[in-house]
């Protein structure tokens, strides 16, 4: 039983998503069940994390078929850490969804699909089989298509079309890559592929499949020439949906890149150069995009792109220090990006808009809330004791040691531009006087909500801010964890031996 604990997060989400379908029209009941489900998933994720932390990599063989033949679920440190972060973000967003998403949307099975999305994410992190990874990706994108188009407003449908088109295309490319790889090695288990790919003589075909994987996952994780679907779609759904997308959907692409390029395609100099130049361009274009936007949701979207570049570049450097930086940044980024979109939802509820030109005076009217929002914003920049600071030390050190000065410069540029934009945002939204605009009458403002309803807006933000503060002030623990994961990733025979029981 204790060995099977790593699949329990999947079971919990599957159970709750099916359970919620039986209460299709009872929206208030669904809210309670969903929050309970996510709290339970959080407990299970913590349990699984502690179990794997103490006992090392756990595997579950489905149907008792031993490793290279059946589908295996592998709970190594990276996977369970991401499952834990998914559970934290999922819990916060489910609380935030209850009031901020209007009832007309919730009535179309919002919570059920939300649990399916979390199921897909957990499955993608835990699976050890590359075709199974494809299937989990499909579950993720189908759920996300539903979540992005529920409500059917004009710009939402337009965003959904764009989002759908490129994500579906990415899946097709991923499937092509998978077909080519299967034709070369004749196995689907990632650990087994890692062993057999060394014996393949046709290195051209290996490079082709690697580039196909890079393009497929690159579209999903929004790296430089492939990110244009993201600024066209992420701001259209309600903030709660944007939050879970921003926190986790692009990061699952980054996870897949990390997995594939540390386990299967290790140390090809062509790919390293390609990844590094893409990372530099991603940081540059994301940062420049953030500066010119006036809508805070769009600013945060470009920050997602900008900071993906930090992780991809660290992956391309492929040293243990860089890897530890990447993992630490991933942990920091999932929590902070989810929180930023929740904050934008909170600002929308207070002021009916997220346009910086129409906003202002938030600090004068809501000093305590502003202080709460300031912590994640300054963590994003990486003001020293806060969480964004620590991974940048590892990344900058690694890029300096590897003598990759372009990436070194890009890191500095990315951090600086984040500081400038957050400074501008702080001045415009919080310090500036409220400009005279006509507030719409037919809108439920934050002040008109009951205390319990206000709580559902403030609690998730405070909860994620607390986690961010822990990552910042308890950086020693997170750094140790990141270094342990980095060691596991750099020495991939540990993963292979655990899966194939050698």
């Amino acid at each position, binding site marked *: 039983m204790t060995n099977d604990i790593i699949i329990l997060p999947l079971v919990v989400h599957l159970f709750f998503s099916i359970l919620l379908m039986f209460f299709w029209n009872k929206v208030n009941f669904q809210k309670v069940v969903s929050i309970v489900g996510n709290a339970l998933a959080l407990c299970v994720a913590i349990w699984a994390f502690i179990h794997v932390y103490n006992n090392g990599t756990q595997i579950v063989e489905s149907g008792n078929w031993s490793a290279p033949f059946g589908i295996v679920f592998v709970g190594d440190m990276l996977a369970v850490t991401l499952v834990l972060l998914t559970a934290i973000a999922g819990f916060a967003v489910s609380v935030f969804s209850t009031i901020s998403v209007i009832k007309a949307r919730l009535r179309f099975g919002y919570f059920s699909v939300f649990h399916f999305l979390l199921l897909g994410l957990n499955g993608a992190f835990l699976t050890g089989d590359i*075709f199974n990874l494809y*299937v989990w990706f*499909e579950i993720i*994108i*189908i759920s996300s*298509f539903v979540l992005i*188009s529920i409500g*059917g*407003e*004009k*710009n939402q*449908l*337009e*965003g*959904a*079309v*764009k989002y*759908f*088109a490129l994500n*579906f*295309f990415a899946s*097709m490319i991923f*499937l*092509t890559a*998978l*077909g*080519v790889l*299967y*034709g070369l090695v*004749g196995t*689907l288990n990632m650990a087994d592929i890692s062993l057999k790919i060394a014996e393949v003589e046709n290195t051209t075909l290996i490079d082709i499949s690697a580039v196909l994987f890079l393009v497929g996952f690159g579209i999903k994780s929004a790296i430089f020439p492939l990110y244009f679907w993201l*600024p*066209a*779609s992420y*701001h*259209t759904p309600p903030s709660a949906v944007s939050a879970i997308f921003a926190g986790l959907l692009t990061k699952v692409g980054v996870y897949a890149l990390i997995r594939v390029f540390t386990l299967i395609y290790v140390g090809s100099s062509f790919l390293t150069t390609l990844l590094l130049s893409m990372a530099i361009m991603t940081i540059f274009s994301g940062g420049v995009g953030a500066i010119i936007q*006036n*809508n805070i949701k769009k600013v945060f979207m470009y920050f997602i792109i900008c900071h993906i570049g930090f992780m991809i570049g660290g992956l391309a450097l492929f040293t243990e220090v860089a890897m530890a930086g990447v993992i630490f940044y991933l942990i920091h980024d999932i929590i902070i990006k989810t929180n930023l979109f929740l904050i934008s939802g909170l600002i929308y509820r207070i002021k009916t808009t997220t*346009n910086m030109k129409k906003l202002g005076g938030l600090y004068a009217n809501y000093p305590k809330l502003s202080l709460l929002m300031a912590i994640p914003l300054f963590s994003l920049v990486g003001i020293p004791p806060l969480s964004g600071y620590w991974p940048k030390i590892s990344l900058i050190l690694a890029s300096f040691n590897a003598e990759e000065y372009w990436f070194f410069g890009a890191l500095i540029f990315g951090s600086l531009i984040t500081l400038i934009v957050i400074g501008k945002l702080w001045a415009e939204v919080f310090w500036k006087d409220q400009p005279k605009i006509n507030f719409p009458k037919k809108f439920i403002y934050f002040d008109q909500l009951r205390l319990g309803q206000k709580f559902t807006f403030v609690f998730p933000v405070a909860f994620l801010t607390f986690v961010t503060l822990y990552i910042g002030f308890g950086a020693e623990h997170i750094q140790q964890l990141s270094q342990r994961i980095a060691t596991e990733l750099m020495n991939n025979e540990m993963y292979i031996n655990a899966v194939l029981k050698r």
Partner: protein
Amino acid sequence: MEIILAIITGVLYASGIYMILRRSMVKFILGIILLGNGVNLLIFTLGRITKGEPPIIDSAEKVLEGVYADPIPQALILTAIVISFGLQAFAIILVKRAYKVLKTDDLDQLNTTDEDS
């Protein structure tokens, strides 16, 4: 046989990508359908085509001897067909709804999401 399948796969990919690059949303759906079929055929071909050798172990033996047809690509294709079928159904409904709301089929007209709001 392989050469014919390879050519068909190539034609399906090329026509699929051509259709995706067109400006109409309906042609985009046709494109992803063609591309999906191309991918399935590619996996089928790459799994090595073996005729008349089912992977069934004789009751007298323990392991398979000699050449046999690999069953895994077929399982993969079946999964991929089901998934892409669902996605295509979703795409058709989505495009129909989008057409009703946006009153256009031309992808060049879709730029309300880029406006400053």
